[in-house]
């Protein structure tokens, strides 16, 4: 069920990948991940190409490899599940070091491992090279409804504030000797969650009043005047198009 999300994945750098306009990166990553997802699992060489593409991006974005590996931990529960597949899969038709395995299960393990790790790496690279508000702006430029991007920007802007309040509440509880072991000790957690909701909502109302007094009419003003050049699109979409070509070739040759 994962862990908390206290910090975003952004790595401050001045690379060619960091400089690309966010909408080109968002679309590029979506195309790249879609190509991976539809690739037949038997085309092992295709996954090698995808991995090579990601290595190229890691190097050109100057993101440390150790950083990418440490952030890949979010897929661990699913990887563990995948590792059991050869043992629990139907039809044991292979024997490997005395253990009966299902060859169908081995293929499934490979499929889930390859696609989840490659997909997560692509997401990590997007998040490492693009600040979160820019990712949201990229979606806005890709014509995602303004209400959705608006909610997302507010959420991101106030996440630190609200998470900070939560941390202070927890510190206060621990300082008073709170150490929950059993579910029946859950009341303090819940009452602070309730307090946090009321505080968040009231903060939302104050923010709304403040916006209203500055002329807010229900739509955020457009201050975004950047136009993306064809060259930038070409740079961003080159590798994803290579991946799509790979996926198509894999389909045709299998």
């Amino acid at each position, binding site marked *: 069920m994962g862990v908390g999300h206290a910090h975003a994945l952004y790595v401050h750098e001045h690379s060619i990948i960091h400089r690309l306009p966010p909408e080109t990166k968002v679309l590029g990553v979506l195309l790249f991940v879609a190509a991976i997802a539809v690739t037949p699992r038997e085309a092992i060489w295709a996954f090698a190409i995808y991995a090579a593409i990601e290595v190229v991006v890691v190097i050109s974005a100057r993101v440390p490899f150790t950083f990418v590996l440490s952030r890949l931990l979010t897929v661990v529960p699913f990887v563990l599940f995948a590792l059991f597949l050869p043992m629990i899969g139907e039809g044991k038709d292979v024997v490997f070091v005395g253990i009966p395995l299902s060859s169908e299960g081995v293929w499934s393990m490979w499929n889930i491992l390859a696609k989840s790790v490659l997909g997560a790496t692509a997401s990590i690279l997007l998040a490492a090279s693009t600040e979160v508000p820019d990712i949201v702006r990229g979606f806005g430029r890709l014509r995602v409804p303004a209400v959705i991007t608006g909610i997302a920007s507010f959420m991101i802007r106030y996440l630190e504030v609200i*998470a900070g309040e939560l941390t202070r509440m927890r510190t206060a509880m621990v300082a008073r000797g709170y150490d929950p072991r059993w579910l029946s000790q859950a009341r303090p957690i819940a009452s602070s969650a309730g307090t946090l909701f009321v505080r968040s*909502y009231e903060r939302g109302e104050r923010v709304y009043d403040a916006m209203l007094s500055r002329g807010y009419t229900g739509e955020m003003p457009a201050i975004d005047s950047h136009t993306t050049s064809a060259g930038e699109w070409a740079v961003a979409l080159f590798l994803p198009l290579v991946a799509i070509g790979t996926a198509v070739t894999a389909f045709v040759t299998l």
Partner: protein
Amino acid sequence: MHAPDGFLTAGTAMATGAISVSTVTIALKQAKGQMTEKMVPLAGIAAAFVFAAQMFNFPVAAGTTGHLLGGALAAILLGPHVGALVVTVVVVVQALAFADGGLTALGYNVLNMAIIPAYGGYAAYSGFRRILPQGRRGVVGATGLAAGVSVIFSAAAFAIQWLFGATAPVPFDTVFGAMVGVHTMIGIGEGVISALTVGAVLSARPDLVFGASDLDRAQLEESDRAPLRVFVIASVLVTMLLATVVSQFAVDGPDGLEAVAEDTGFISSGQEHGLTDSIFADYATTGINNEGLSLAIAGAAGTIITLAVGYGLFKALRPRGKVLGH
């Protein structure tokens, strides 16, 4: 439950994606009517609350903790449309900015973690409110039960998607039993924390609880709070009952079939490869023998979830007198 890329087939990803996009479109339209121009700041900060609430670790059993999923809680506090929308934004941002959950898995992740808990949880909440006494205790009790049920709904929904889009040769009933079993435990924690959270909000700002907007202040101010211990014991009992019912389907079914096979004598030939002692060896046969039963469980669970989500949508789409806030 933030599933990664490639966990279900591309077709399932696209089908669930289409369902999610169309439901979010409805939610967006309805939420706009409910919150008017306050929508963006209020829903945005509520989303930050849900995001932060997922960092609350609560004890599940001695030594282990789980964290709040918050779909049903958001629907009861904010209304199902705003709730579904807010949790959708949380799940999408988690995938994009925190690499938690695959981008091509967003279709089923949004469906399982935002839409089904919000609408299904709200439907369960309305149902429980009908049975339970009116007033504060009814609201708190219904929240706890609905939040617990909503987690089981999403686990079952995932298992059903597995039936259609499995990428591995693991039979549906194994996945269903494991998912629902584990999530029943998580559901207890989710239920207790959600109920107590709504109770705390009712004490401070009862007007902020969307699910209690049909009650007036006097009905909410009754002070006798049900002792927490009673609530925990009751939810454990309900869960054990549910788990027993589920395990009857998931485990006893195959055993029953095997018993029949042994009685009729045709299982003896199965001994020859010497693997029948292993627990896993059973799954290989049960999966095949049990196809009809798997389909029956999947069908029943799927119908219940679809009905619940549909009822939640219907319930939420009906015009109502009160508007959220004040």
